[in-house]
């Protein structure tokens, strides 16, 4: 608890940009540089740069890497080609979710797994328990910086600082969910076309000490494209509008992927993996509760608020916010399947008052194709 907060290599940059710094998962991180609403809209309409160096980076290398990563995760790592990435889950034998991750296949026998900052220690123990001798594991979390560039103008900005042929709307160079080694701002990088905002975007992994060079060059190259630094506040509103999960809020070790609506990330036919049995079983008989989207009419729903039906508590909000793009108060909540149909009228208890809400389709926001 009393451990000092860690700082990323970009700490001084954030301070000089006027960021408000807050503790997050053991790190001192920028929550906003100015207005969260403006930062959110900038990513939707132009582009933004994020310091995500707090995220964890695990490498798995060797002849057994593929089998081991596949064993640890629910999605089909076996079908992941070199140069491709996928959203994935790690589950406990109980089917509860240890973490949600992105798996990048960066080489024939090389996988990069990016984990949530709050889970690095726990995940490291989880993925190294029983590590086979033909897999070399490296936790590079504290030596790898991560800069994300997200938004409709992101490809133009990234093109200006990399030698990689990144094209808009092109599957050449770097397609969505593609990953490559490249030079970015004259620094050796792993660059992926992934993100957490619902917009086109890139995540650039570099050596810790080189982060300021990449950050500065990206901001300079993006100046004419309306780039600005974006804090974790807007990152949260951006992801929630897209129904992207926040580990610890929407999913955790007590939630099964099926009830979270993550059945699409679970490939039961891929062979044995941690949590397969309970996940298959829930898929078979159907969950008793489901994570649904709510729009609330009169007040901002927040994590932990009760969801009610005719005065009875029927669930809890896992994430909630005012959605800056959708201009509505939105939430995710677990409710009984009998109350999960689109259009079901429910309430969210805000300051003791049951405020009308209804179950809506998610994502709340989807970018135009």
């Amino acid at each position, binding site marked *: 608890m009393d451990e000092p907060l860690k700082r990323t290599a970009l700490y001084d940059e954030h301070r000089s940009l006027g960021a408000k710094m807050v503790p997050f998962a053991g790190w001192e991180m920028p929550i906003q540089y100015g207005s969260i*609403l403006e930062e959110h809209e900038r990513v939707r309409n132009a582009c933004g740069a994020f310091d995500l160096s707090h995220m964890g980076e695990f490498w798995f290398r060797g002849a057994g890497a593929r089998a081991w990563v596949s064993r640890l995760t629910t999605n089909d790592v076996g079908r992941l080609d070199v140069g491709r990435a996928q959203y994935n889950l790690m589950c406990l034998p109980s089917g509860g979710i240890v973490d949600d991750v992105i798996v990048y296949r960066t080489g024939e026998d090389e996988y990069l797994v990016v984990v949530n900052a709050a889970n690095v220690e726990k995940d490291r123990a989880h993925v190294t328990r029983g590590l086979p001798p033909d897999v070399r594991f490296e936790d590079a979390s504290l030596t790898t910086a991560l800069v994300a560039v997200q938004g409709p103008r992101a490809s133009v900005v990234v093109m200006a600082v990399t030698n990689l042929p990144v094209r808009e709307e092109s599957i050449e160079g770097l397609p969505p969910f593609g990953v490559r080694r490249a030079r970015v701002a004259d620094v050796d990088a792993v660059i992926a076309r992934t993100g957490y905002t619902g917009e086109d975007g890139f995540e650039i992994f570099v050596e810790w000490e080189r982060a300021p060079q990449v950050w500065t060059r990206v901001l300079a190259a993006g100046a004419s494209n309306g780039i600005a630094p974006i804090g974790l*506040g807007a990152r949260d509103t951006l992801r929630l509008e897209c129904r992207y999960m926040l580990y610890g809020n929407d999913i955790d070790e007590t939630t099964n992927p099926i009830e979270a609506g993550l059945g699409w990330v679970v490939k039961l036919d891929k062979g044995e993996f941690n949590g397969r049995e309970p996940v298959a079983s829930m898929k078979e008989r159907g969950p008793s509760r489901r994570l649904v989207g709510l729009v609330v009419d009169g007040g901002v729903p*927040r994590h932990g608020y009760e969801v009610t039906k005719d005065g009875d508590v029927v669930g809890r909000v896992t994430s909630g916010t*005012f959605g800056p793009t959708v201009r509505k*108060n939105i939430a995710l909540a677990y409710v009984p399947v009998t109350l999960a149909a689109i259009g079901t009228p429910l309430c969210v208890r805000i*300051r003791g008052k049951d405020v009308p809400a209804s179950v809506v389709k998610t994502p709340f926001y989807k970018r135009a194709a």
Partner: protein
Amino acid sequence: MVPEGLLYSKEHEWVKVDGDVATVGITDFAQEQLGDVVFVELPSKGEQVRQFASLGVVESVKAASDVYSPVSGEVVERNVDVMEKPELVNQSPYQKGWMLKVKLADRGELRDLLSPGDYRAHIGETTGAAGAD
């Protein structure tokens, strides 16, 4: 920004007294601390508010915060504009972002409020720049 001619509470509300009616809002310092205001909940006309008790809530993207009434009395008007456009609290905290007009129950309560100078000292403002956290 702490305008002259108003009274202030330690909880960062301002009062403008005009006869026996007080107009109430939150200060520039308060809106700055809150960030983007996205929801404002206010009592209806005819309701009673009590000095230093909660009169309503302002919600920013990140948090909900109580607004405390700097005076006691009956609500004679609430600012419907600010409920429809909460961003007025950020854009114009002392003008368009006002919240309530309250018919003063006890003018003596005004003695418990701060002068502009005292409020500036309270928020650590020395040369006109707000002393952010």
